[in-house]
């Protein structure tokens, strides 16, 4: 057991293949390797080694539709949110970074309370997470960056296990930004993360005491689960809406596209599981 652990750690820290992707990191970093949102090249390199292990060996991620991500220019990647911890964002980010059709180093908008958590806040911003303030998002779109936004927020990431694959209420901020900044929306469906960390209750009094939006009662174990990420075709929305209710219709359009990708992912997972069973039978 100890030897396996050592092998994993050694694999993670001695992996220099990530060097190939460093040239797609944002070029707006200053002399000390930081950009204005705290992204830090040194931390990102170390984090990529860990994410690579998670992506390739632990979650064995299968991606479909990477050709839908624009090779350059502003865009918003809009996935469903799940898994209690922001690992889904890391996996989507890694898939963009290693996209054979054209690598992108995306930023991800995260919950506003995260900067208040010691270590986590700093670590997240150093690997490209930015607090979910529209001003931040606008500036990054103006910088022609690719940005991952989870419109469900904690409603999605911290939902209960019994609610898995049920999309929660979407915020509409991403739609306003996409329209205002003429940015394409790439819907994404993530299947598999719901099963990794399972929450059975939200202890609201504890959440209040800690000043956190949620305090999930979870099984303290990350279940291994194969993850499927499906990227949909870019959707463009003109900036021609005058009523908030029209925005809601457009948000629902994106939500429906994500739901469709989720169903494709779930079907593919069933097929994969059947294939595995048959393979095991033969063995």
């Amino acid at each position, binding site marked *: 057991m100890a030897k396996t652990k050592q092998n994993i750690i050694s694999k993670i820290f001695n992996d220099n293949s990530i060097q190939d992707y460093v040239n797609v990191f944002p070029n707006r970093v*200053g*002399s*000390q390797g*930081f*950009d*204005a*949102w*705290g992204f*830090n090249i040194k931390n990102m390199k170390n984090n990529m080694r860990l994410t690579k292990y998670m992506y390739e060996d632990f979650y064995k991620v299968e991606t479909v539709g990477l050709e839908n991500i624009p090779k350059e220019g502003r865009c918003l990647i809009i996935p469903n949110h799940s898994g209690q911890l922001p690992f889904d964002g890391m996996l989507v980010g890694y898939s963009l970074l290693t996209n054979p059709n054209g690598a992108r180093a995306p930023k991800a908008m995260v919950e*506003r*309370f995260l*900067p*208040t*958590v*010691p*270590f986590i*806040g*700093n670590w997240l*911003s*150093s690997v490209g997470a*930015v*607090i979910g*303030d529209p*001003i*931040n998002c606008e*500036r990054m779109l103006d910088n022609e960056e690719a940005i991952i936004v989870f419109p469900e927020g904690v409603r999605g990431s911290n939902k209960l296990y019994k609610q898995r694959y049920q999309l929660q209420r979407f915020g509409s901020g991403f739609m306003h930004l996409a329209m205002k900044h003429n940015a394409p929306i790439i819907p994404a469906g993530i299947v598999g993360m719901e099963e990794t960390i399972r929450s059975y209750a939200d202890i609201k009094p504890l959440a209040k005491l800690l000043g956190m939006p949620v305090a999930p009662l979870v099984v303290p174990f990350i279940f291994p689960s194969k993850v499927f990420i499906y990227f949909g075709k870019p959707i463009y929305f003109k900036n021609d809406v005058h009523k908030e209710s029209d925005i809601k219709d457009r948000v629902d359009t994106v939500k429906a596209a994500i739901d469709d990708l989720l169903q494709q992912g779930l079907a593919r997972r069933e097929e994969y599981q059947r294939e595995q069973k048959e393979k095991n039978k033969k063995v």
Partner: protein
Amino acid sequence: MEPKKKILVTGAAGALAKKVIDKLKKDYKIVAVDFRTKVDLGIPVESYKVDFNKRLFEDIFREHHFDGIIHLGRISAQELNRFTRYNANVIGTRKLFDLARKYNVSKTLVMSTYFVYGASPYNPSLLDETTPLKASELTMDLVDSVELENLSTIYLYKHPELNITVLRPCNIAGPGVRNTFSMLLSEKRSPVLWGFSPLMQFIHIDDMRDAICTAFEKNIPGVYNVAPDDYIGFQDAIKAAGSSPIQIPSIPPRLTEAVAKFLNWKSFPVYLINYFKYPVIIDGSLFAKTFNFKPKKTLSDIFTYYKSLK
């Protein structure tokens, strides 16, 4: 030959004011004042120790007919109690503006600080000059800084003849600077909050001097952030300056406050705890564009200087 124009520089005992005076004295007649001491700046700079709220202050205006004022004199929270500070920084500045009006001063530069934005976990990055000033929401000890800004803005629009320019710089650092974060860079061991390394901006004192002189001479009234577009995490800055971080517990916040009160370090004041936690990154592009300004010294130059002190 046209006689040299005369300017009043406040806060003359400070390192930055001395540098500004040194640069401008070739082209201007300078009168230097400070509330702390009469500073000997050598001939030809006349120097006074003065309290803005005393009637004698007007005598200086009567005697010298100032063309401009560079108002750098601000009592920091480390120096005096809140009440005295408010009187000096806010009421005193109002007196200064009123005298400037009375004696037809046509150019006024006021030094503020990025602290006025307040360190909040909800701050977006690259705060521009229109961002609300929320520092007084966090601590009463910064009320005078915010009020000084508000007062300057009122006079800027109500009395355009004063041509007021307000500069909000990021952390100024370099030889002689004694503000909180520069003091921490110069110490061998510096307190940091466990698990927090807020992104920061630093500008070298020489670049800040140039920013002040350029803004004063070009005279384009308004409020401007002054900061380079280069950033570093606070704990990385401490290490780059050759200092060893002392980890202070960061949770729960009350424990941090209790530790800060117990330690009673000038360089780790309770009212600035949030600035040790959350970034306040300002957008200096308006100033850079308006005044064609680019800092000459890099972050490495700043940290190399502090490292050489150890």
